[in-house]
């Protein structure tokens, strides 16, 4: 029953977004980062499951320490979206990283996801549980999306599929650039 409720909540929220309303608790930077990270699976695959898990958890730990030390800042969402731009470029270029580079990128994704998951309201350390839920949900969404990309675009996929993934990478960059521009004019974050 809980999963049905969760599904209904996700679907209704997507309807809201389509209608032009974004809930206050939806983290724009987090969503962009999750999609960018999911799409760049081909670039990150060299790290392997174990190394990727360690790097991601290390990144989350670093992000958590940074938030607890510095508190909630206004700058990080723009930096996180800037990082999403880099991931989008890597996807569009079909960049293939070596093991070390892939691990570092995954580490940075973990840190960025944590920074982007800070709840809009609430003081730390009380808001820590809400942030933890956001991070776990984000990590789950990255895994689901990366699986979808692997299904759509396996190693020996037809050419049009790899073209579609490249173009999707360029969408991430374009959307991120526009969001950064809009946020400079309005109080988006």
């Amino acid at each position, binding site marked *: 029953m809980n999963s049905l409720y969760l*599904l209904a909540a*996700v*679907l*209704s929220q*997507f*309807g*809201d*977004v*389509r*209608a*032009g*309303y*974004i809930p206050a608790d939806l983290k*724009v930077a987090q969503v962009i980062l999750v999609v960018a990270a999911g799409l760049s699976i081909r670039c990150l695959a060299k790290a392997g499951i174990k190394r990727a898990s360690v790097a991601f958890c290390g990144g989350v730990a670093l992000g958590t320490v940074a938030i607890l030390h510095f508190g909630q800042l206004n700058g990080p969402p723009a930096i996180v979206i800037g990082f999403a731009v880099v991931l989008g470029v890597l996807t*569009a270029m079909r960049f293939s990283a070596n093991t070390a580079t892939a691990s570092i990128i995954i580490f940075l994704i973990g840190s960025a996801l944590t920074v982007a998951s800070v709840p809009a309201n609430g003081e730390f350390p009380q808001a820590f549980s809400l942030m933890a839920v956001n991070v776990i949900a984000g990590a789950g969404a990255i*895994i*689901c999306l990366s*699986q*979808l990309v*692997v*299904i759509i675009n396996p190693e020996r996929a037809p*050419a*049009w599929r*790899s*073209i*579609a993934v*490249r*173009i*999707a*990478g*360029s*969408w991430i*960059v*374009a*959307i*991120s*650039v*526009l*969001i*950064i*521009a*809009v946020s*400079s*004019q*309005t109080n*988006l974050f």
Partner: protein
Amino acid sequence: MIFTSPQTRKALILFSFLLVAAPAAIAHTGEGLSGGLLSGFVHPVRGWDHVAAMVAVGLWGTFLGRPAIWVLPVVFPLVMALGGAVGVLGLPLPGVETGIALSSVVLGALILGKVRMPLWGAAIIVGVFAIFHGYAHGIELPTAANPVSFAVGFVVATGLLHLAGIALGLVTTRPRGEVFVRAVGGLITAAGAGFLLGII
């Protein structure tokens, strides 16, 4: 691979389609639809000048072959976003409408004439025109009910129009396909001339 069973894969794909099929929330339709995901999505589709140019980019990319088939549709949204950012920031850009109409004329003519050029040259041509298209979308962004969903909508619609152009261009592999694609290029040029002269 974490999800290996075919059933799980199908469920994942079905879930993605369900997300797309989710109905818009009725409670917010009054103010939201004027500047949400849907209005961003239909913004490029409603303007035939945009549609002609976007399809032409995909079509020309297919005509030029690899790697232009993916480079041009990747370059376009990237540079378009920069043009959009210029529009969002309110910086002036002269001749936007002329630039948009010219994009159809030039890109259509390049397809019609079966013009082959170096990749960097093609990317520059596409990039220059993308600035005008992006600017036209960008100046409407700050007034949208939700700029983020509007931006997502128009970027995705632009990309899908490129993909439509690529799909159309794939007929070049069939007999007389090249003639068909060049004819479409001619139509795009004629439409662009119509936009330029204010006839259409």
